[in-house]
């Protein structure tokens, strides 16, 4: 949705009061399917001194927090004569019109990246209670644990999927900033820094390694158990057949002895 307004009209719905009427709200698509509202306020030169405060309040209207990382939101950035306020669901920029495209590009990229990282972190957090419950299966597997095999397989798949998603994300996180520096590149870099994206990526990687090792071990035990079970079944089948043959032979002997 784009809300354009003429300079003399009242602000369009969704645009906060106290910002120039030429401001507009754009919805940025995210990979997760949700949307991110971006308020672009063109710098005219006669804006009120508390305009940045208005943007901050507007962004803070939809509270989203990152308590796990003790990051206070929204984040306020000032660079290259751009005032930028960012939160995971909303952001606002106070910048000259020609910079809006770069800002949009930078925020789309970063918001997607951060949303994906948060989704991976949520997945990891959700996996820990199951990890604790599944600890015994990494040591050994038995008939009693046979019924949880499908559950373990699903958890293994979840962890491996998270690991794959994180690996792809790490590639994005660690790619070098464009040279010479651009506004979009700088915004992305600052936001990554403020949201501790690299540290979070490393932490998530460490956690996923533990989870992955654990479910690898579970998978190995389950696989060993299934192979042993199959061999065991085959061995017992042979033993039963041999025992039956012996018994038949003995009965035949006894029968002949009787006559």
């Amino acid at each position, binding site marked *: 949705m784009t809300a354009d307004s003429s300079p003399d009209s009242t602000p369009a719905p969704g645009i906060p009061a106290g910002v120039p009427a030429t401001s507009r709200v754009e919805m940025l698509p995210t990979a997760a399917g949700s949307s991110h509202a971006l308020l672009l306020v063109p710098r005219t030169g006669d804006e009120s001194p508390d305009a940045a405060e208005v943007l901050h309040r507007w962004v803070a209207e939809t509270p989203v927090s990152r308590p796990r990382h003790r990051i206070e939101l929204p984040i306020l950035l000032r660079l290259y004569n751009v005032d930028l306020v960012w939160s995971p669901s909303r952001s606002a920029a106070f910048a000259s019109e020609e910079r809006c495209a770069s800002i949009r590009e930078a925020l789309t990229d970063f918001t997607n990246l951060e949303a994906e990282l948060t989704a991976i972190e949520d997945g990891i957090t959700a996996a820990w209670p199951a990890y604790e419950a599944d600890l015994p299966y990494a040591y050994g597997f038995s008939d009693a644990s046979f019924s949880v095999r499908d559950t373990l397989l699903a958890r293994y798949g979840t962890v491996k999927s998270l690991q794959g998603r994180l690996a792809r994300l790490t590639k994005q996180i660690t790619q070098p900033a464009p040279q010479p520096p651009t506004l979009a590149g700088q915004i992305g870099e600052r936001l990554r820094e403020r949201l501790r994206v690299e540290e979070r990526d490393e932490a998530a990687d460490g956690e996923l390694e533990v989870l992955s090792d654990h479910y690898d071990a579970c998978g190995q035990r389950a696989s060993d158990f299934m192979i042993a079970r199959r061999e065991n079944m085959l061995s017992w089948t042979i033993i039963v057949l041999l025992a039956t043959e012996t018994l038949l032979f003995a*009965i035949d002997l*006894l029968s002949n002895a009787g006559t």
Partner: protein
Amino acid sequence: MRHLSIDILRTAAIFMMVLVHFVENLSATYDTQDSGGHPLTPWWLPSGLAAPLFTLLTGVSYAIWLGVQQRRGVSEDEVNRRTVRRGLFLIGLGFAFNIFVWLPEDTFNWDVLTLIGTAMLAFSFVRHLPMPVPLLIVALLAAFAPLLRATTDYPAYWQNYHFDYDFTLSDVLLGYLVVGYFPVFPWLLYPIVGLLVGRGVFAGVGSQPPALTSRGLMAASGVLALAAVASSLLAPLQTETASVDWRPPGWTMFPASTTYILGTVAAGMLLLGLLHHLVDVPDGSDDRRAARLQLPASVTAFFNRTSRHSLSIYLLHHVAHLWPLWIYGVASQGEPTAHWQAFMPAWASAGLGVVFFAACVPLFAWLDRHDLPTAESVMRWVCD
């Protein structure tokens, strides 16, 4: 945890056993002694279900007992020891029973107690086997039984409807394996099928649902019933002992024909599935009232007590009707078995059986109240 379905079925099995033994031991040839015929009629057919049901339930109960031991954290070694001790106890009790009740010449008649004892010994290793292997054992027991009976000349061991053997090693062993009353081939399959059914239907691990529902069990029984009908239709092609006129073609208990095995296993599974569906608490529910069919507490208590004391009732009912018969035989003709199977009309012996069964209810209530020993409590004391 007790399952009312099992209590009801075991009560039915022991009641049928009491009735069968009273009638067959006191009256089987009363009306036709001169001709040596067998007077029983089609209404007697369900009585053939008593021993299969009793042995099938042995396996089901063992599976439940095993689940309880595992939940209590009893070690595998200890479970094995208890299983083997129970097996040996029952075999010993079986021999003592044969000697004291059937008199020493029938020591090795291989009655149901020695079969259940053997089943217990078999359980100690069968329980460790993956599912297809016990099924293979069941199939082998059923498939080889008729062949082995042909090899061993089964009819030669059976005179006038009872097992007649010589005190030789070959006869004793063949009696145990093939030609006795309840030989390993094929009778061991009932407890093993019971173990598999018990594991599938009753012994769900923790919150895991059972592998087999009561509907699944009834469906399986339907398949077996169809197989029994097919086997019965093919009976004329078999060369084994023909069944008497009033029974379905190919239906013989001694020897246990394929038709009989399929039919009784199907009936046992059908009854168990049906009762489990109706009177047991549905899985996953803690509410006792959640059972589909509520029985009065006094009725439930009756089934529970009778089921718990089924072994004692089995032993006692033989003593109650056979010892007086032996004593009277010695007193009147100098031969204990002089009046065996020909002592009174069937209606009278059936009535006596019912009276005995009715008398068991207050008797075992009294024994329970005074905490007096029974066969079951002695077995637990010795084996557990």
